[in-house]
């Protein structure tokens, strides 16, 4: 099954498929967000605040950001592996990117749930 393809038994497929799945999730979210904004068309601070604090918005935006992080992680990882030949520099850059992505996700959680 598809889930099996995301395990370490399929090292190549796992990475490729994750990038495709996250891309689909992001595309769907983007369309839904536009449609939702058109339908709700929030006007003023209170309306925007209501819109942004709904559970559906929070959870879908969080999911979107997780997907964005995974997608970006794979992409940047491939670029670093192709272009940076110095192992130390590559590891350093990779750790920086990973750290940045984690910070973004934590930051987003703080914004979304006001933790």
């Amino acid at each position, binding site marked *: 099954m598809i889930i099996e393809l995301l395990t370490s038994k*399929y090292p190549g*497929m796992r*990475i490729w498929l994750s990038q495709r799945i996250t891309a689909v999730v992001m595309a769907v979210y983007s369309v839904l967000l536009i449609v939702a904004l058109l339908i709700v068309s929030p006007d003023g601070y209170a309306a925007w605040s209501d819109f942004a604090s709904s559970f559906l918005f929070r959870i879908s935006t969080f999911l979107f950001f997780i997907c964005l992080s995974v997608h970006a992680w794979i992409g940047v990882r491939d670029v670093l592996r192709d272009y940076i030949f110095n192992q130390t520099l590559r590891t350093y850059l990779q750790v920086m990117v990973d750290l940045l992505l984690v910070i973004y996700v934590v930051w987003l959680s703080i914004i979304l749930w006001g933790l």
Partner: protein
Amino acid sequence: MKLSIYRFDPDVDEKPYMQDYEVELQEGDNMLLDALLRVKHQDDSMSLRKSCREGVCGSDAMNINGKNGLACITRIADLTEPVIVRPLPGLPVIRDLVVDMTQFYEHFNSVDPYLKNDDSLPETERLQSPEDRAKLDGLYECVLCGACTTSCPSFWWNPDKFVGPAALLQAYRFIVDSRDHAEAERLENLEDPYRLYRCHNIMNCVEVCPKKLSPNAAIVAIKDLKIELSKERGEDKPAKKYLELSWVEYEKR
């Protein structure tokens, strides 16, 4: 006609250099290879590979005005002068326009480019329906010139690990062959993170193929097939749904 040709003889030269030539074309000189052979008459130290001179053997693949192609089927009339001729990029140069294609052939060999069928031999040949035969159109025509693989950035960055468009096209050619019974094994053989998945659909392969084939479509089809196979795993069957589409139909999708 003016040409600028990449010259390098590792026994004599320290560094490669570009040499300018001017040749007088004669009647019947229509293709770049004709002009290169005029150069060869002028300066017989200039080396290149060629054989059939009609786009069938794939020997004279080179980089022509920045784009890989076969000199023998590249029309002089379509080229801007001076024509800059270099060896295929990304492969070691043996001399002038002659490159060492060992790596290219190793990748080709790694996909087992031959029919695997353990059934007992039939009395005559193994038959194929016209529909099954049609699935090989757009695949069997490859002449292994190497123009696609050497124009692929994924191959430039990982020449030892990424199999490259030419070999992947060949892999697919045997995967869809109705006479071959090793589909699952062939798909497993491409599971490594580099061998197949380093293709990022850059499409240079499609752009340069002198036979107008689409290695990229074959690569996409292999990836789809691997997903299909996983759904049917356990039944020990290839992914029939895709295999039943003819290649031409697949490309149109």
